């Protein structure tokens, strides 16, 4: 039994691969069957990743990693998968988004192009692999898997806008992949290893000349990851692409930009921590100010966007920027809250992307006319009394309610989890510099506040023109299966608020293990080979 549990780590990679491959063999017409297989796969994935999360959470603070040695070769020589709290968290987030996006696609989207389900599963495989892998080159391979699948998903549904956006998206990402390769091989040339734990161990012992080369390698790698994460000025492709992609694809992409953030967090905390000698804290200011510029750019974009999909695209930038800047502060408490923000904003943005398409169905050319039903938009109390009798169709009420929830979530207002996250980050920032708060910290806090305000203004404006419009003939036809994922994601955020204590405790434990990289390195490098307890790594 223990043997089976040990092999659980590789399931999130193998399962989508197998199910994707099987679905290739089925006829394109048997969509119901494929949908069933897809849903079943994602449900199993969710179960497995929740199981892994529990395993990771049960690990003692001092040895917070579990490794899986492929081919049973020990760490620096063989390929390892590494499970710790952070990767388990990302796995759960991925499978939650996958279920939501897949359910949504079953209503309509999976019919509009070939092989949607296979590509979707391969995308999941790439994401899970990127979260689990323990060495740089396999990270590259899994990045390519997830990117190749994402090219397919961007183009899913065809149409000029998607092909045009897809062309730019592919060109950008191919370039980023080349940068990734240059950085990874340069790091190998300097240190002689690609295993992340081994790399981290060797950095303090680099000769000064080599340290400079390694810094160059890290900068090139960082550029590649920041490109994927959508940091300014490498992010002009992102809103266009995400807005052009079909709704379920865009919802899944909400986690894709977080892969870049995840990798930066993992590698930066691992390699350039206090033990790294002359390279300690390398690039921290770039992350901090790059993140702040991304927030600013995203905020302006949110305010300027003329359409809902683009608004959602720019909120991705705000979210990424916030995370990158929070990582750049290097403070454990800030990063803990930032992880909370990562979960909350990813769920919120995914829900928004799904919702946007439903709302767009409702907006006919005359939708901008301000009309009567203020109740459809919710809590405003200055309704003219005589309008009370207007019937609000349930669909519009649910759509409007979800839209409000998304706005609250992304703007960071109570009572949803966005508020808890932002409040946690700001409170930690005020404390991190000691008695006097740095100017850059003030700037970051200001930017966070302004970006929340801008999101609120932009979403209110769009909400007014969509939901307060005349709706005699424009009640959208929305199916339960499309509405359920949106509501589900938002309810999860509500749950995250109510269960804020335990969730925050998990994030803090995650940050603690991130800040103790020697646990990670010894955990990976000294893990015993399966079956031979004796001749373990010395």
């Amino acid at each position, binding site marked *: 039994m223990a043997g089976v549990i040990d092999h659980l780590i590789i399931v999130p990679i193998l399962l989508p691969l197998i199910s994707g491959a099987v679905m290739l063999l089925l006829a394109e017409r048997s969509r119901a069957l494929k949908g069933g297989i897809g849903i079943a796969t994602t449900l199993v994935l969710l179960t497995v990743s929740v199981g892994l999360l529990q395993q990771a959470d049960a690990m003692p603070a001092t040895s917070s990693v579990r490794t899986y040695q492929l081919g049973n070769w020990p760490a620096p020589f063989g390929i390892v998968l590494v499970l710790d709290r952070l990767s388990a968290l990302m796995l759960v987030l991925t499978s939650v988004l996958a279920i939501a996006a897949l359910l949504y696609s079953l209503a309509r989207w999976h019919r509009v192009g070939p092989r949607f389900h296979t590509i979707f599963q391969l995308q999941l495989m790439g994401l899970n692999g990127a979260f689990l892998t323990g060495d740089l*080159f396999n990270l590259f391979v899994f990045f390519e898997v997830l990117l190749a699948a994402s090219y397919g998903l961007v183009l899913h549904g065809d149409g000029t806008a998607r*092909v045009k956006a*897809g062309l730019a998206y592919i060109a950008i990402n191919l370039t980023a*992949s*080349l940068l990734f390769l*240059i950085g990874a*091989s340069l790091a*190998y040339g300097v240190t002689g290893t690609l295993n992340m734990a081994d790399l981290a161990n060797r950095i303090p012992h680099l000769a000064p000349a080599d340290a400079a080369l390694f810094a160059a390698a890290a900068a090139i790698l960082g550029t590649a990851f920041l490109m994927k994460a959508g940091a300014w000025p490498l992010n002009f492709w992102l809103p266009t692409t995400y807005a052009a992609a079909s709704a379920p694809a865009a919802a899944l992409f909400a986690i894709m930009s977080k892969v870049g953030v995840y990798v930066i967090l993992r590698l930066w905390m691992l390699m350039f921590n206090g033990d790294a000698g002359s390279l300690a804290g390398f690039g921290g200011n770039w992350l901090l100010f790059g993140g702040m510029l991304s927030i600013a750019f995203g905020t302006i974009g949110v305010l300027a966007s003329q359409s809902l999909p683009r608004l959602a695209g720019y909120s991705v930038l705000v979210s990424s920027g916030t995370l990158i800047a929070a990582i750049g502060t290097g403070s454990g408490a800030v990063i803990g809250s930032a992880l909370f923000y990562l979960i909350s904003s990813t769920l919120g943005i995914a829900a928004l992307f799904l919702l946007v398409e439903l709302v767009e169905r409702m907006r006919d050319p005359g939708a901008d006319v301000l009309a009567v039903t203020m109740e459809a938009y919710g809590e405003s109390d200055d309704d003219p009394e005589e309008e009370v009798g207007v019937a609000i169709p349930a669909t519009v009420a649910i759509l409007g309610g979800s839209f409000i929830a998304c706005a609250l979530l992304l703007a960071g207002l109570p009572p949803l989890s966005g508020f808890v996250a932002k409040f946690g980050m700001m409170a930690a920032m005020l404390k991190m510099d000691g008695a006097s708060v740095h100017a850059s910290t003030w700037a970051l806090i200001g930017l966070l506040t302004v970006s929340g305000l801008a999101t609120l203004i932009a979403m209110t404006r769009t909400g007014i023109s969509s939901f307060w419009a005349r709706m005699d003939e424009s009640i959208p036809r929305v199916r339960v299966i499309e509405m359920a994922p949106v509501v589900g994601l938002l309810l999860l955020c509500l749950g995250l608020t109510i269960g804020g204590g335990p969730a925050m405790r998990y994030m803090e434990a995650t940050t603690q293990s991130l800040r103790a990289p020697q646990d990670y390195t010894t955990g990976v490098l000294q893990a015993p080979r399966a079956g031979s307890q004796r001749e373990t790594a010395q």
Partner: protein
Amino acid sequence: MNELVFAVAVGILTASGVWLLLRPRTFQVIIGLSLLSYAVNLFIFGMGRLQVGAPPVLENAEAIDPALYADPLPQALVLTAIVINFAMTALFLVVLLASRGLTGTDHVDGREDT
């Protein structure tokens, strides 16, 4: 001398690749990306240090002097990178043709400059 020729080759490939990548025609972009990937593949190979006539496979287990052998790892990495790049180039080519068909132009923006 070897190193110089190698470095110059990588440099020329990169420079040509970047220049082509910034051109407005999709075909130039794809050729630029290909040239860049050649440069990167050579670079990865070079990261294993250049050696002439050294085998990458250990012949017998005893008496190993690593200096006599080429580093096999970058060669394996290059192989992987070549395969992935090949696949991505093929995919990009398809999108390029689709874009040409849908927009009627081979400009990267999908419309001609006016």
